[in-house]
């Protein structure tokens, strides 16, 4: 867990400058991911950037403690960074390299780190949600005091497994939290094109959870709401939190969002949690240079992640058959080995 401490992740008491710093690191990291793709160094093009959603990651994370666990979705870089991830190893994983968190087997959509409580990103919309019910069950059984948080998008609100999961969490009074990062869009589908019921937290209430919707423009709102929901969950009332924000860019790297009007995008991007925090910091008397220094530090840190990823090795082809099952257990037989034996014996 020490990694979290080392990176002094924001807490419920953290001031705006630290929150801004955490958000900026995410924004800059995501920009570098885009660069990695443009340079043709990413493993594939299925890269989903969380630019515009930083307050959800940082705000909710601020209410979490070391030992808490979480699952994320296909747009989870920011959440993992907020929980203390090493951006170098993240970038390397996104490039499909040996030095990545999953040694190049997982990639952007399957990054995980048990040391930081990250039970895994997921490429299945809604796929990571029920795992937090299980993790919360274990936390209660072993009395660790931990909560488990599922992060997902508004699109996942239409996946049935969310309701099965919330219902079980409520039935058993588990320390589980369901966080919907409502960036208004699921690929090319606006939330009101996916459901008539856009007051998302009401669904959680109907299943017996506590629930709120919060505007993610001001990260401090998210910080406060998350504190309420997480405290409630630690006390045995699972909660749901919808964070309203905007997906500033396309769904994945190649998507130019032709299905959205420029006017909408301008308005949406104007609702920028970083710009808002910057303004608030200025108001609060923080000198611009101090804030610029934060940006520069983030830039320097994240620049290095690209060189690290590019400089890392591809996984060895021999690693392909490893980790299907635990070490020492019977492994799948490679097709070539089978053919060798078959032709040798005949």
């Amino acid at each position, binding site marked *: 867990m020490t990694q979290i401490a080392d990176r002094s992740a924001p807490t419920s008491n953290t001031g705006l400058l630290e929150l801004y710093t955490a958000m900026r690191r995410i924004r800059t990291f995501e920009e570098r991911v885009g660069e990695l793709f443009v340079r043709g160094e990413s493993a594939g093009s299925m890269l989903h950037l969380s630019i515009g959603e930083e307050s959800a990651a940082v705000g909710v994370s601020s209410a979490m403690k070391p030992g808490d*666990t979480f*699952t994320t979705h296909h747009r989870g870089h920011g959440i993992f960074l907020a929980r203390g991830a090493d951006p170098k190893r993240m970038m390397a994983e996104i490039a499909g390299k040996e030095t*990545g*968190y*999953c*040694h*190049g*087997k*997982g990639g952007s959509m*399957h990054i*995980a*780190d*048990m040391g930081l409580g990250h*039970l*895994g990103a*997921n490429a*299945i919309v809604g*796929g*990571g*949600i*029920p*795992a*937090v*019910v*299980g*993790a*919360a*069950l*274990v*936390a209660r*059984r*072993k009395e660790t005091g931990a909560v*488990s948080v599922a992060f997902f998008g508004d699109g996942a609100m239409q996946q*049935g*497994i969310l309701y*099965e*999961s919330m*219902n*079980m969490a409520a*039935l058993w009074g588990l320390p589980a939290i369901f966080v919907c990062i409502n960036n208004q869009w699921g690929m090319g589908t606006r939330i009101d094109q996916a459901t008539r019921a856009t007051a998302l937290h009401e669904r959680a209430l109907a299943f017996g959870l506590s629930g709120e919707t919060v505007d993610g423009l001001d990260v401090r709102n998210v910080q406060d709401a998350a504190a309420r929901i997480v405290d409630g969950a630690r006390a045995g009332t699972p909660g749901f939190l919808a964070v309203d924000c905007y997906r500033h860019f396309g769904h994945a790297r190649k998507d130019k969002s032709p299905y959205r009007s420029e006017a909408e995008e301008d308005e949406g991007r104007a609702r920028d949690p970083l710009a808002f925090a910057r303004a608030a910091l200025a108001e609060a008397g923080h000198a611009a240079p101090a804030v610029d220094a934060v940006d520069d530090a983030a830039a320097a840190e994240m620049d290095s992640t690209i060189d690290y990823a590019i400089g890392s090795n591809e996984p060895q082809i021999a690693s392909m058959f*490893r*980790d*299907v*099952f*635990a*070490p020492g*257990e*019977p492994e*799948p037989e490679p097709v070539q080995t*089978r053919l060798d*034996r*078959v032709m040798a*014996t*005949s």
Partner: protein
Amino acid sequence: METLTYRDALRRALSDAMREDPDVFVIGEEVGRYGGAYGVTKGLIDEFGPERLLDTPISEPGIVGTAVGAAMAGMRPVAELMYVDFIGMTMDQLCNQAAKIRYMFGGQIGVPMVLRTQGGTGRSAGAQHSQSLEAYIMHTPGLRLAMPATVGDAYHLLRHALRQPDPVVFIEHKALYAQSEDVDLSAAAPDWGKAAVRRAGSDLVIVTYSRQLHYALDAAETLSAEGIEAAVVDLRTLNPLDFDTLRPLVEAAGRAIVVSEGPMTAGVAAELAARISEECFDFLENPVLRVAGEDIPISVSTELETGSVPSAASIADAARRLMS
């Protein structure tokens, strides 16, 4: 020695494992108060309590997903799926999550869960409660698959499954629950992943598992009276698959029949026939014969139900053709 039913042996395996390992718990529909739709967990709640025999709502995808999370978080869930026929709802959690997590995450964590369920014909339960779907599992990388045919294996394979570091799908057969045998569970457990030669015979080899083992043994008796000696192999686990036990027997006999209750096409029988045909090619006198379920849904009509899966008669009939 004691006389136990297949059902009792399963219950014993669960209670012994739960006593030994406080992290083992059962989660599923009707597993606690009700004691399981087929009575396997009956009474366990009295000793282990409702937290370790966790009754759930009817939410199969959520149940399997919850087990995945609990396994990752350090416990050993035994998720019960009342009928293997319901697996279709859970295959994302089972095949995209449980089966792939260790691999996708570069080996940092495993998912030591057991999915206990039951399948097969025998109760006129109709098309959605009588299937044999083990081929879906055998085809999915990352999953282990055990299918006990005997009372002893009901106990030992489940104990083994509860010590595996990876997800195990454990499929019981609904027609075997009441079957009883004299067993000594304290005797050394047969190894996990090893097939059992249930009957010796030099004329042909019948390869099967689960309930069909008993039909194969009956057929072998009949054939013996006709002067045909069939060896009968019980695979016990389909992943790992123990081909080393099979190879010498087939090479010696030169003839093999594979028997599976599941639909024939692209099923377990296909894998076994393909494997034997490729590995024992030079030793085969005749083609490997597939005796399997018909490629049709199961009817509620008992006559149609029985007619759509292998029987001792159809196995013996295939053996006679092979020897003629």
